[in-house]
């Protein structure tokens, strides 16, 4: 279970953003809806443990995330949280397989080529294993970034605007992949977007 309690944050004395309390049960699929500039990314960063809020507390499965040391937090994030960004952002100097190995070793988990094959296969890009990112299409790269997010079987899968730069058909496809993968890996899913097209797919919505 993930919860945020009386969290608020401000950037250098500018407007203070307060977030209402939020409780997320394991396995839930949530939509985080908000216009650009409403603090969506800020909340996602707070949830993923890369931005410490000025006030409030974030709990994940009984762990108060921001009471961890910087190093422990990095490892906690690597193991428990998978993040999919609006653009794929893979490491260009590494092959697809190496990008996924990277995710395993940074989380201090054993390197597991079997798991990599399994995930790539389930996303239909198994044959691109030894290609470099610049040899793949945008859609394939998006799949790789999903693969990277789920490779360590995280408890929480977070996607930041995964569909905003895609056309209708691809937006639905990506959304289906996300739901499918979160189900497959028994991960809680949070999709942050201002894209109204994906609204109907979710029962739970947290609006900013």
């Amino acid at each position, binding site marked *: 279970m993930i919860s945020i309690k009386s969290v608020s944050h401000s950037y250098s004395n500018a407007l203070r953003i307060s977030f209402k309390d939020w409780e997320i049960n394991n396995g839930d699929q949530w939509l985080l809806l908000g216009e650009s500039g409403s603090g969506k990314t800020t909340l996602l960063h707070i949830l993923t443990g890369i931005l410490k809020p000025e006030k409030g507390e974030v709990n994940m499965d009984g762990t108060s995330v921001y009471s961890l040391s910087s190093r422990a937090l990095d490892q906690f*994030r690597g193991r428990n949280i998978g993040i999919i960004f609006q*653009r794929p952002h893979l490491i*260009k100097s590494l092959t697809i397989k190496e990008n996924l190995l990277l995710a*395993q070793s940074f*989380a201090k988990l054993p390197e597991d080529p079997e798991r990599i094959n399994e995930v790539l296969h389930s996303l239909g890009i198994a044959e691109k294993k030894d290609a470099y990112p610049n040899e793949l299409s945008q859609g394939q790269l998006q799949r790789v970034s999903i693969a990277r997010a789920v490779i360590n079987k995280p408890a929480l899968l977070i996607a930041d605007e995964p569909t905003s730069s895609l056309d209708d058909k691809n937006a639905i496809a990506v959304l289906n992949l996300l739901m499918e993968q979160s189900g497959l890996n028994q991960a809680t899913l949070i999709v942050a977007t201002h894209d109204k097209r994906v609204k109907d797919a979710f029962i739970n919505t947290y609006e900013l």
Partner: protein
Amino acid sequence: MSPIKISWKSLWSKPLSSALNIMLIAFGTGILTILLLASTQISQKLDNNSKDIDLVVGAKGSPLQLILSSIYYIDFPTGNIPLKDAQELSHSPFVKRAVPLAQGDNYEGIRIVGTDSNFVSVYKLTTSSGKFWSADFEVTIGATVAATQKLEIGDTFFGAHGLTGSTDVHKTHAYKVVGILTPQGNVTDNLILTNIASVWRMHDDHEKEEAAEQQGSVHQEEKAAGQQYEETGVHKKQTRPDQAGQDSGREITALLIQYRSPMSVVMFPRMVNQSTALQAASPAMESTRLFSLIGVGVDTLQCFAILIMLIAAISVFVNLYNSLKERNYDLAIMRTLGASRGQLFQIIIFEGILLTLAGTVIGIALGHLVLQFIGAYQESSQARLSGLIFLSTEIYLFVAGLAIGIFAAIIPAVQAYRSNISKILSKT
């Protein structure tokens, strides 16, 4: 995927700028390696050849030339000295041992040196086969001479007049090889040793021939110190050991002296320089002087090499710093995957170290290779440089390379360490 592998792959993803950095480092290190090896080898050779000789007495002229010709067998002799004077000095109470030298001939550019058994004791020579010279026209040859000229015991050859060139060959007498020296690691490896009388006799007879050919001409051509000059006049100036007659008229080229006591250091050179027409030169002093002359050039090159290394360091820094701007996002992504700040720091530092270490290794290898190449094309066999000698001081070059790598990478690495990933990630 260890940090070092990530650094490695990252460098390979931009081969051109990596190669440029490695080349700069390699160039700087290469020059430093050559300087280090060459100056060590030269000073070692200088010391090795002169270690048991306290003083050289020869004709007036440049003291450095006297040392070069009589100890290193590189330059031409300053002239000749009367045997009588030399013998007087040999019996001086200051002198423990005196070695007479008579030069003037060569065989295929290798100097034929007339001397006596004192030479053997001063250089502590032993033969690997055969014996030392005893009768006239018997020679004992250095190990390198035997190898390069393919001379064996029993072989004979004709010496040529002068210290280089083989145009004027003494056909009247042939030298006979009676012994080969064990390798000494000094000049004696490259010498042909015989007795002084052989050198004298060779020239006596040679002159008779010439005189007969010229039929009593008062002009006599003569070569001294490898250069030809003509002298007009009835009396011939003596510049080499070739005068017929009794011992009093004979000449030798130089006298190597070992002192009897430390007192001699002060007294003897002054005595020679003031009370005789001869010149005394100290190998130690002249070597130091020679080295200080070369030293200016070495210093300049050293500054040049250090400058190149500095430019290389800046280049590595700029390379890492610029790539960091492009890779900010990559590094932030790595953090979201669980990489710690320390790991990012390591990745950047490793990139710097890998670049400079590769440059250093290539540079050192290149330095050795170039020096070996220079050695192979060197004219003087006496001071041949070798690229196959490795020095323990080269480890400092490694340390320097490592230090430059860390130095160049530290600022980018600290930046990567301190970067605010939330800020970077929110700028898409």
